[in-house]
């Protein structure tokens, strides 16, 4: 195994991972729609997990993958779904009874 060559490849991969992190983080910050933001956040989590793995921090990469890529975007999507389904306060009509019917 050529150690020096491996080190160089590692450094290129780190640069690529850093670029991915920068691009996805900037895209997430510039996006206005929360649903797209959640997807970009998941991609950011994935790029960060790759970066942490390349930097030999697998423990942190696992946490990042689980929380940043799975749980946080899911919580955002569920919240968006709840908020979008509620049409907001209507004009004083009693609508009880509608909810249970399907």
């Amino acid at each position, binding site marked *: 195994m050529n150690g020096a060559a491996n080190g160089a490849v590692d450094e290129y991969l780190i640069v690529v991972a850093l670029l991915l992190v920068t691009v996805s983080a900037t895209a997430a910050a510039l996006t206005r729609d929360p649903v797209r933001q959640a997807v970009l956040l998941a991609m950011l989590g994935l790029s960060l997990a790759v970066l942490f793995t390349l930097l030999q921090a697998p423990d942190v990469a696992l*946490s990042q993958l689980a*929380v940043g890529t799975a749980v946080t975007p899911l919580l955002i999507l569920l919240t968006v779904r*709840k908020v979008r389904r509620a049409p907001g306060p209507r004009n004083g009509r009693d609508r*009880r009874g*509608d*909810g249970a019917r399907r």
Partner: protein
Amino acid sequence: MSRTARIRLFWAAAVVFAVAYAAACTGLPRFGTLAHPYATRAVAAALHQRTANVVSSVNFDQRAFDTLGEESILFAAVLGTIVLLRHARDERTGRPRPGRVLPSTRLLGMVLLPVTLLTGVYIVAHGQLSPGGGFQGGVILATGLHLAYVAADYRVLKRIRPLAFLDAADAAGAGAFAALGLAGLVAGGAYLQNVLPLGTFGQLSSGGLVPVVNAAVGVEVGAGVIVLLAFFLDQAVEVRSPEEHGTGGGG
């Protein structure tokens, strides 16, 4: 404050921050150097405590008190979510309509669900040996269970998710971490001191208190994340506010 004034204030602050940050970065050690003063000491201490995964040794032994604080934050966050998302008096629950699931999705979910749960248990149990631990394994366990929702529907998920038990498990896991720290006091040492027999380096039972605390954290995080997601899912799928009418989807 007007919009222009706010933007000027932001740019002034941003410039000051950028200059100070750039100046501070010049004082950092170079990227990827061989000298790591803290790592050298942490690795030596982890080897002394016969914990193969140095990160776990730092988290659950050398700096266990910090981790206790973090676990308490997670516990408090889950508790706060439960209180905020509890059913209000004017909310009604409707039964979610089962969604259509592709056969391939169903098959993949059925195969992956046990594999994922096993992976989660493995990662919790081997926290003292290999990358991972209670937190990572706990989140894998919790998210893996939700494959049931993806592959089937909400009612199946509810059937395999004993929420009352998981509520108690979350609290028990958080309490067990704090209580395990008392073992050090009983043995005449400090709080959270690793007083259990250290075992053989590289064995599943090595590390003394580390695997025990790891398991407590695994239970707490796994149960906590399931409960957290349960309350979010409940609001998004089942609960309807009084203004809302019509049917909600199931998934």
